[in-house]
């Protein structure tokens, strides 16, 4: 088992390295010239040359890549083009904020969706199952900002329970932070819950057709006993990997939500960077998001290996 896991982790690291090349390539070597793309058509050759030198674009691409990559490994993500600030200093507190929001949402979403999924599976075909199904289908198909604005309209404007803007400061207390970020956390929760819930329901139901489940029924156990004691442990593997995958989506879903609620996280920082065409900032944010995404995907696979006996002892 350790070998399988080790292989998976090494694979994750290789992926991350390949991703770093891709991010770098996408921003620097794609057809067209970054300097002229940023300065526009009206730039004179002299300004272009100066700008290229400033960006270091007059050196070969692989040299710049290696430099960028090793600096990033040492925790140096470069300097923002627009305001000349050190990116790491700006991004670290923002990254903490993003993690806080994502973790908050995950803490609500994971238990709720697993429990609701099991309830739906127990009551398969009944009203509650259909209701949960329809609601989760709807949250999958509507855009995230729709959910966000509906929540704001009701909870922030009409009933004034939560604030509509989630500006947090480092000095804020924990409870206050939880309260301020309640709406974005709820929105994120609704975004990722549907998928996890449906997967929990399907994995539990797919196991229900197994012979040992029939045996359990014939022993005289009730439906809920059979599901919780016999079906759930065997459905755990797919559920766990879906949860980890959804946490990876959570990290990305955060971008739009942060913009809606003006939450100071990496997502908003990245969107700002893209608007101002601040390449080092975009590269740094891209690397962080991709890193989190690859990391969570790797964790998902490792967990799946650890939970599934067949993968644990590969032939």
């Amino acid at each position: 088992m350790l070998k399988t896991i080790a292989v998976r982790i090494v694979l994750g690291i290789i992926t991350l390295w390949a991703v770093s090349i891709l991010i770098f390539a996408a921003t620097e070597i794609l057809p067209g010239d970054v300097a002229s793309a940023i300065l526009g058509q009206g730039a004179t050759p002299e300004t272009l040359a100066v700008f290229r030198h400033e960006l270091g674009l007059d050196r070969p691409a692989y040299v710049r890549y290696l430099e960028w990559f090793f600096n990033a490994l040492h925790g140096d993500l470069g300097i923002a083009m627009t305001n000349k600030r050190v990116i790491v200093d700006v991004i670290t507190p923002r990254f903490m904020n993003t993690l806080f929001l994502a973790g908050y949402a995950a803490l609500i979403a994971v238990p709720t969706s697993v429990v609701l999924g099991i309830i739906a599976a127990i009551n398969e075909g009944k009203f509650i199952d259909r209701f949960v199904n329809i609601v989760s289908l709807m949250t999958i198909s509507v855009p995230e900002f729709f959910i966000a604005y509906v929540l704001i309209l009701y909870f922030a404007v009409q009933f004034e329970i939560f604030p509509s803007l989630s500006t947090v400061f480092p000095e804020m207390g924990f409870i206050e932070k939880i309260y301020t970020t309640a709406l974005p956390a709820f929105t994120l929760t609704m975004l990722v819950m549907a998928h996890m819930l449906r997967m929990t329901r399907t994995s539990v139901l797919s196991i229900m057709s197994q012979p040992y489940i029939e045996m359990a029924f014939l022993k005289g156990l009730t439906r809920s006993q059979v599901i919780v004691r016999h079906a759930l442990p065997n459905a755990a593997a797919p559920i766990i990997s879906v949860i980890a995958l959804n946490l990876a989506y959570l990290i990305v879903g955060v971008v739009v939500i942060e913009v809606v609620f003006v939450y100071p996280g990496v997502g908003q920082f990245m969107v700002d960077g893209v608007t101002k065409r601040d390449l080092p900032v975009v590269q740094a944010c891209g690397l962080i998001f991709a890193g989190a995404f690859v990391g969570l995907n790797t964790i998902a696979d490792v967990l799946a290996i650890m939970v599934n006996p067949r993968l644990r002892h590969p032939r």
Partner: protein
Amino acid sequence: MKLFGYKPTATAWLGLAIITIFIVIAVFADVIAPYSESESVGQTWDDPSWDFLLGTDNIGRDMLSRLIYGARMTIGVALVTTILSFLIGTTAGFLAAVGGTVIDQILSRIVDVMLSIPLLIFALIILSVFGSSIVTLVLTLAVLDSTRVFRLARAVATNLVVMEYVEAAKLRGEGLWWIMRREILPNALPPMISEFGLRFCFNFLFVASLSFLGLGIQPPYADWGGMVRDNGKAISFGLPAPLWPALAIAMMTVGVNLVVDWILSINSRPSGASAEM
């Protein structure tokens, strides 16, 4: 009433109705819209009235007219993106399945790496370099989305390549392109069609999200995502202005999803079983 030999379910009819209405609106926007796309005709966020059925937006343009013109832009961009993405994705996917191990390995590994970066993040990175004109937007999204299409096309095609009739075509001496077009494509079509609907939904939401972030379709064109962004502040005054375009987006995706569900249920049904429905 039947469609392509199958009887749509009630929910499928609902979906078809929504899609048809939205497409008619998009095509005949000039005729239907009471005002023009960019003309200020009222105050900021006027209440709905007989003159402005859904009120006005942040700079006094008629909300309903903007929604009608927005349909053209938002649906159009998503549709073109999806078609392009399918052209690239299926061609590459079939090529990987038919063209031998080397081509397959090269294409698959490239796609693997591209899939390990979240789409939104990747799109943001590329748009930061090229800026977002409609052409770069469509091209970027199409190329990124085609990685998803590639996976399905390749999976479907690898199952078909081992069939006798493909073998026969190869022995006949038919070329790669001919085999892909005449043997693989017709047989791969059913799963690809429902995938088309799903990818359209995805791209549609994706374009809307990017526009909402201010990085998608740019003004003066009306588009639903951008309209949500423009009118976002109205919500803190308790005005529903940003909800109209957001609702339009939601309705469109729900409509397409309903139809896709129906198509999927046809495909999964054993052939002939539809006669009793």
